[in-house]
Every structure is written in C-alpha cells, then in structure tokens.
C-alpha cells in the first residue's frame, strides 16, 4: 500500500504553522508559493522528470511544516530538496549542475518571476557566473540543509504521487468519452498546479482524493458528462473531501494572481529572506529571534548614552 499513500500533516502541525510563526499568513504563503515555483523551474532546467520534481515539492512542503521558514534562505532549501530527491531516485544530478541552475534562476538574466508584460531580461552571463568560492559555499549550505530536511521528515523520503492513479482512474472511466489527450492533459495540469497551493493539498489529502478531484475539475472545464451516480465513492473519496479539493485546486490561480499584485517583490524574481525582512519592517512588524532583539536593545542603550554625552557636551 506504500505506493499509494503518503504521511499526512497532523492538524496540530497545520495549526502551529499559522499561529506560532512571526510572519503573517500571506507572507508565509507567498514564500511557499515562490519556492515551489522555483523548484519547478529548476526541475525543468535540470531536465528532471516531473515525477522527481513533484516529489521535491512535497518534501519541501513537509519540511516547512516542521521547521521555521526563516531558518535558511528559501532558494537554498529548494535546491537541497531537489538535490536530495534526485539523488535517492533514478535520475541523480550533480551538485555542480544544481548550483549552476540556481545561480541562473536567481540572476538578473533569468525571467523567473518577472512581470510577464515586460520584455525578457538581457542575457548577461556574468550575472550567473559562479566563482569557485561561491560554488563551494552553496554546496556546503545545500549539504547541511539536506541533512536537516531528512532530520525534519524522519528520513522518510517516500512520496506517492496522484498522477499515475489519475490516469488509471481515467481509464476506468473510459476517459469520460472525450479525447484521451485532452482530458489527461487537463488532469495533470490540475495536479501540478495543486503542488503550488499554499493550502498544501498534498499534505492534507491522499493521492486517490487528489486524483479524483483533478478529474472532476478537468471534466467540468471540458464540459464533459460525468457518471450520474456518486462515482467518486468508487475511488474511496467522499463528497465532502472532493468538494474541498475541487475548490482548493480551482482557487490557486486566482489566489496567485492576487498575491503577486499584493506583494510587489513577487515581480522582481525569487523572494529572499532579506525581502521578507524588509517587508516586515515596512509593515512595522518585527522579525527575527531573541538574539537580534537583544542586540537591538544594546544598540538602543548605546544610542541613548551617546545622546546623553552629546547633551552634556553641548551643555558645557
């Protein structure tokens, strides 16, 4: 059964993520979404099969449900997830390849997360040239995060994807009497988009439910007739969960559009920790841990003492 099931997030883990983080939910979601998109882009440039990249997406989501978002640079975590999954799977990629791809995607030459209306950026090879020191540093960071990810997910790198199940279900439904290619493509599109959903659908539902919801959505889009009975029960999905997933899958597109309007940084390439810290400052919120606060307090004290001294000096 292991090939059809995934470990799921516990209600407690999901609750903690939203309630105990210093970051507002919409920023958490923006980070999650952009890191997942970055992972997908890297998977394409690394010529990994989508089955591997999708697994990296799921591993990344699991990791961030256990560990705080701001511990490591988001792009480094994405790189570590993809490196790890490629390594344990049938298509390993060298650290050098991974680092080159990420250097390019994060450079000013890449069109990743640029506004689609603006012209593609000029190709400037020096912007993604990686010095040996920079490469070594990246490599070391990725290896440290790789171990950290494994620790956080208890070394369970197993991810069951709904894609093959969905095709099997479509066959059982005789492709709902439409063109095989058309409906299969739409189903796979829904499943891949769901990977990016900040609702973390892959961590809250088992593959069979995701597959059925994607089929339902695709059939709706194509206007094909579905069986009149409660056909999803044949695939062990109940109506309520199906309804939730159908809405969840459909909402990603609209949500992502709005989010990219709301967070201006999302049009200037991959978000970084620095961007988020800046954004938090703009909102008058404080991000960071106790240590930094302590430093701030010290700095504040020093400033006051300086002022006092200055006052006394002018007074004299």
């Amino acid at each position, binding site marked *: 059964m292991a090939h059809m099931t995934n470990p799921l997030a516990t209600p407690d883990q999901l609750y903690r993520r939203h309630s105990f983080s210093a970051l507002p939910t919409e920023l958490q979601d923006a980070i999650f979404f952009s890191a997942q998109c970055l992972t997908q882009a890297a998977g394409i440039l690394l010529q990994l099969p989508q089955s591997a990249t999708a697994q990296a997406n799921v591993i990344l989501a699991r990791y961030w449900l256990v560990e705080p978002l701001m511990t490591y640079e988001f792009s480094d975590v994405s790189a570590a997830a993809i490196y*790890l999954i490629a390594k344990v799977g049938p298509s390993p990629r060298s*650290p050098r390849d991974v680092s080159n791809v990420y250097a390019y995607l994060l450079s000013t030459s890449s069109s990743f997360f640029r506004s689609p209306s603006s012209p593609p950026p000029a190709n400037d090879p020096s912007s993604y040239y990686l010095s040996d020191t920079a490469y070594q540093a990246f490599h070391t960071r990725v290896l440290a995060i790789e171990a950290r990810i494994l620790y*956080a997910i208890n070394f369970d790198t197993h991810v069951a994807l709904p894609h093959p199940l969905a095709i099997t279900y479509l066959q059982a439904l005789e492709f709902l009497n439409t063109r095989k290619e058309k409906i299969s493509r739409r189903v796979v599109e829904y499943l891949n988009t769901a990977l990016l959903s900040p609702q973390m659908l892959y961590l809250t539902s088992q593959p*069979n439910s995701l597959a059925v919801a994607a089929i339902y959505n695709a059939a709706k889009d194509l206007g094909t007739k579905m069986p009149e009975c409660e056909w999803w029960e044949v695939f062990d999905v109940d109506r*309520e969960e199906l309804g939730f997933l159908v809405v969840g899958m459909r909402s990603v597109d609209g949500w992502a559009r709005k989010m990219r309007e709301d967070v201006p940084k999302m049009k200037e390439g991959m978000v970084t920790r620095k961007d988020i810290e800046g954004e938090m400052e703009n909102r008058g919120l404080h991000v960071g841990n106790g240590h930094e606060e302590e430093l701030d307090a010290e700095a504040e004290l020093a400033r006051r003492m300086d002022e006092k001294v200055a006052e006394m000096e002018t007074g004299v």
Partner: protein
Amino acid sequence: MASKGKSRWADDEDDAALEAQKKRGKEEKKRLKTEKARKLEEEKKAREVEAARASQAQREREDEDATRPPTKRRRLSPDRENTTATNTTGRSSELLRFEGGAFGRCRSVENYDKLNDIEEGAYGWVARAQEQSTGKVVALKRLKIDPKDRGGLPVTGLREIQILKDCDHRNVVKLQEVVVGEDTSKIENIFLVLEFVEHDLKSILEDMPEPFLASEVKTLLLQLASGVSYLHDNWILHRDLKTSNLLLNNRGQLKIADFGMARYVGDPPPPKLTQLVVTLWYRAPELLLGATRYSQAIDMWSIGCIFGELLTREPLLQGKNEVDELQQIFELCGLPTEETWPSFRRLPNARALRLPAKVPGAATGSAVRARFPLLTGAGVSLLNSLLALDPDKRPAAREMLAHEYFRQDPKPKVEAMFPTFPSKAGQERRRKRQTPLAPVRGQAVELGSVDFSGLFTGRDKEERGGGFSLRMV
C-alpha cells in the same frame, strides 16, 4: 503558470457556486457545533440539578452523536474544545481509508541506553541497546558517513532506510525508527533502530557441530523464499543476499537484513544498473560476465548458494576473484552453451571467454548431484534450477515456495521446534568474518581474456581411467 494572460481555470460562476456551497457547508457545521455546545451546556445544568439522571443524559448525548453525520475530512485545525472528541464514534464509513501515518522530526539517540557492541568494522558499527521508556532491546546500526564525501549523506544508507521503512514482513528485519545524535544543529550521527535478532546464520553455521537437519533446511529456505518473494512483489531487489545478512532469532524465525545494496526496480528492469553488487561468492554468473540489465533472478542465484551452504555449512562457491568464481561456477553447474543459456555470448565479458570445445558425452553438465549425494531428487532439482546459468530459467521466489521439495518428507520443521543456540550477540563479540566484503562503488573489474579451456580436462581422464564406479547400470 499563473502569469499567463487568460485564466485556464473554469468559469467564475461555477467557482462562485462552489465557493458558496462550501460556505454553506461551513455555516451548517458551525451551527451544528454551537447547537451541540449549547445542548451540552444544558445537560451540564441538568446534571447539576438532578445528579441522579446523569446517566440518562449521557445516553441521550450518545444518541445524538449517533444521528449526526460525522465529519470525515481531516480537520485542519485541532479542536480546542472536547466536544468534538466524541465525533469519531460516528457511523463507520464504507469507503476505504488510506492511512499513511504522519511525519515529524527524528528522536534523539539519547532515548536508548547502549548495552554492548555487536560488531564493528567495514560494515559500520552495530550495538545492542535498550529503549529507556519501554525497556525494549533493539539493535542500533550507525549509518556510515564520510565527512569528506561532497555528495552528502550516502545514497545507499538513504535507500536502505527508505526500503526498510516501506517493508512490513515477518521475514524482513523491522526498522523501528531512525534517530540522530544529541546535537541537531549538524546532522552527523544517524542511527537505524532495528529489531534485535540474536544470531546471524553465518556464525551459527560456523559454530554448529552438526549440519542442519533436512527439515530445518526446508524451514529456513521457505522463510528466506517467502521474505524474498515479498521484496520482489514490492519491486525491491536485495542484491546482497548471503548467510551473514540473514538473521535468526531464538524462535526459529529468519529475517533478511542489510539493505545497503538494495534498490527499487521497475519492470522491465532499468538499463545500466551497477554490476558491482552482491558479495563475490553469491554473485550470479550474468553479473560476473558484466550484465548491466539484470532482474530478480540475481537474488535467486544467491538463494541457491545459500541453499548449498545450509546443507554443508561451507560457502558453496568460494572464488578467490571474479575469474576464479566463474571457474568454480562452471565446474559446478556446467559450461554455458547456446542451448542452456542462449544469450550469454552477448554479455560484455563473455566475448573474451574461451571455453573448452564441446565433447559429446563428456561430463560438462551440472555436477550438483555428485556434490550433494544425500540430497533428495526434489532437492537437487530445486538447487539445479536456482543455480541455472540462464537467469530466465531460475524460478521466481513465489514459484520456489510451491516447489515439490517442501511438500516431501521430511516436512519442514515447525519454527517453534527449532533448536536454540547459545546467545552470542548478547555479550560475546562475533567472530571476524571470512566472507569477502560486498563490492564497493568504483570501476568494475574487466575479466579480460580468460582461458577456461583447461577446465574439464581432468574429468575426461577420470572417465577414461579404469577405476570403479558406484553407478549401477
């Protein structure tokens, strides 16, 4: 992706309708919940007023739960009130629920007390330990990590963990959990917590004064075949089956261990698998001849070697190197011919092979019968099929389970009736192994041009010699 101009997603009306439907559902749930909370409150008051009726109120509440539809979707936030805790007692669903468990951080190795080392060496470090909270005795196996390896954590170790996590069979050693060293800022010490099994077959065979009885050999082989059949059914190749990797507990149960070489394969098996697998003495001829596309049959060859070892207490084919191993294989199983192994000439290392010309009537066939004179006819046929040179002719593990050999007298011995052996891993150190180590990654050995033409010359002379033969004609 989301940045394309026109939305690929369906019409907004539909969307809105669904949204509304979801909202309605939510409101309905909310209403039910508040109503329930209210009812509970009332009941509480009622209980205060009339304590004697408390039991009846309880019954009413239970009835109410039974009529309410249960919430079946996983709740995404933990309920802070206790009221919903009773929800789970709703009607049982007729749908199949898939349980995949949860995920979370590893525990620390400090949850275990070390009792004693079991072995240390090229295989890594294994110790017997006790879990503090339960008192359960386990085996702790430390994952060997080379800090200089810039590839990160070893992929073999990660595969072993993943495969063991996915396995659940009585003849496969159980991985209880993975724990890490106390300092989690840098993950450097990783331990596999495995079920503790008292012996390995290798040390038992080395120490036992008399070989296993025929009935005992059958029981061990059945368990081995059953475990391997489970692995193969789940698309796992073990790739390092040998007696030192087979554990035996004091209740006669055999467990397959050490999945450091194991991997998942599909059907057809992927091309370009590494040929550097399986310890030399248990390595199938197609691997020795350089095949990179191989299948479950390589594990079946190893089972054949183990079968022979169980009968004699000695490893069956103790080659000194790849060439010697092949030579020993051909001596025991006969020379490959176009009939017995049609495709062998196409294997990379087979081209340079010079085999003796076929002499009609000469004894170039299998010598298994002569090597195991006490084995029954069915036993010989099973061993011969496992040691078939052509991988396609070896039986699958599942087929092996149904073999005539296991149905004939003496019947396989009941596991519980198995003899016990002095517990070694308890306190004593294990003896140093003499088996060569499993191959390490690197350059495969080229056999080069090998001349086996002298292999059977001795036999020809034997036949011609005028000595007596026990054979009745």
